[in-house]
């Protein structure tokens, strides 16, 4: 946690975990979807479920999905903005197993029919952790440029990806590996110190055995 996680963010109230953190989860989800969602289903867990509406958590998640940052003065009117854009928003509560008390599950659809499910936890002070993407464990903060590579669970893919990054002189901050079943599909979550060029993302996607590559850089406009 860096100093500006402690002092900061500059944000619109009333709650750093329920408002600012939620805006961030929404924002990262939008980045992962790479489009403005046309359909938004929000499921709130734990304290998010208990006090979410009072803290404006639903508004905050929607604000982030609309591309707003935590200090955007329009956050309080995000639901109205979504409605005026014809975006459908529904919100309910859910009980997730072993989840952080401030957890939201977002199911979003883009205009071209792609859908995405993201589970994110708000850890306090506006910091978040994306726990899973499309049901597969992810575990990243969005504080670094992050690459999520889904591949078939076969030897060699990690080396391919890390070699590509090394050739581009991109330094890896953290690397995590997950898989659902042996030989099934696996996920690499790589946080880098510097942004990853889009050609590299396209190149990785073209490699055999790589099923999907998702890249998010929250800092990039």
């Amino acid at each position, binding site marked *: *946690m*860096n*100093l*500006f*996680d*402690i*002092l*900061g*963010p*500059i*944000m*619109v*109230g*009333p*709650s*750093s*975990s*329920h*408002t*600012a953190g939620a805006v961030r989860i929404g924002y990262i989800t939008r980045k992962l979807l790479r489009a403005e969602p046309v359909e938004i289903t929000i499921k709130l867990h*734990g*304290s998010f*479920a*208990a*006090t*979410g*509406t*009072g*803290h*404006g958590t639903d508004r905050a998640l929607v604000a982030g999905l609309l591309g707003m940052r935590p*200090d955007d*003065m329009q*956050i*309080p009117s995000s639901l109205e903005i979504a409605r005026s854009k014809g975006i459908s928003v529904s919100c309910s*509560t859910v009980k997730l197993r072993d989840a952080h*008390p*401030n957890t939201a599950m977002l199911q979003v659809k883009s205009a071209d029919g792609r859908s995405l499910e993201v589970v994110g936890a708000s*850890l*306090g*002070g*506006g910091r978040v952790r994306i726990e899973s993407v499309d049901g597969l464990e992810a575990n990243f903060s969005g504080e670094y440029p992050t690459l999520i590579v889904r591949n078939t669970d076969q030897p060699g893919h990690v080396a391919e990806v890390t070699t590509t990054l090394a050739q581009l002189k991109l330094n890896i901050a953290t690397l995590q590996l997950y898989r659902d079943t042996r030989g099934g599909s696996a996920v690499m979550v790589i946080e880098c*110190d*510097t942004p990853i060029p889009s050609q590299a993302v396209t190149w990785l996607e073209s490699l055999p055995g790589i099923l999907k590559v998702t890249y998010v850089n929250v800092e990039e406009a």
Partner: protein
Amino acid sequence: MAFTSIEQLEALAAQPTPLWRAIMTADAREQGLSEEESLRRMNGMWQAMRSASRDYSAAARSSSGLSGGDGQRMLDYAACGIGGEFFSQVIAEALKMGECNACMKRIVAAPTAGSCGVLPAVLIPFQQKHGTQDETMVHALYLAAAFGQVIASRACIAGAEGGCQAEVGAAAGMAAAALVFLKGGTVSAMAHACAIALGNLLGLVCDPVAGLVEVPCIKRNVIGAMAALSSADMALAGITSRIPADEVIDAMREVGDALPASLRETGRGGLAATPTGQKIARQLNLEPK
């Protein structure tokens, strides 16, 4: 590297570099920021605190209708304050900031939005009284943030995890250290001030009425600021905390873990569960599910 113990900070203070600069350098390197960028950002935090205070509107009300106007009430009364004008200003500043937050205005989470009033409540009146340069105020924020970083790493800074001691308590510890710095105290005095402030607020529960960051949050910023002032003064007077700061923080974590869920931002215990608290929640249609 993030700081994980107050001891580390005390060791760093033995170096010839001023402690705030050593803190900034370590963090900027870790984040890949230039020192100018880090200073610019921290100054941005300070200026945002000042503009939130300046732009306070006595007429603003939160959407629930529960809060607003108390900061102004306190300011109007300030000259008659029992603890003198400075204390009244600190109280008013804490209320103003808490109200800005409740009214969905722009504030600086320090360390959280609910506890955003504690640091500005002591820092803004301090600057007014002593005419301190903005630059020095920004240095004080580095100190506060480093103490907060240790609290976050050894314990937590979220009411949902550790109760209000982790929000207002943490803010009080950070503010106490910053005040000792501004008065030219040693790092050891900062550590004692932080330990005393946090120790005195140990066990503070998180019980927002109707789940809103309004009652008791806004007024709790006042007790955080008061704890910071008194702890800083005690430490500057040479009074020490018998329990070292790191151990107080560890105790805060344990107390937080022991708090039942009803007292950790679920709106189901404490003041939220009182008949009036529940009535307010019902009226606002915000009963905990």
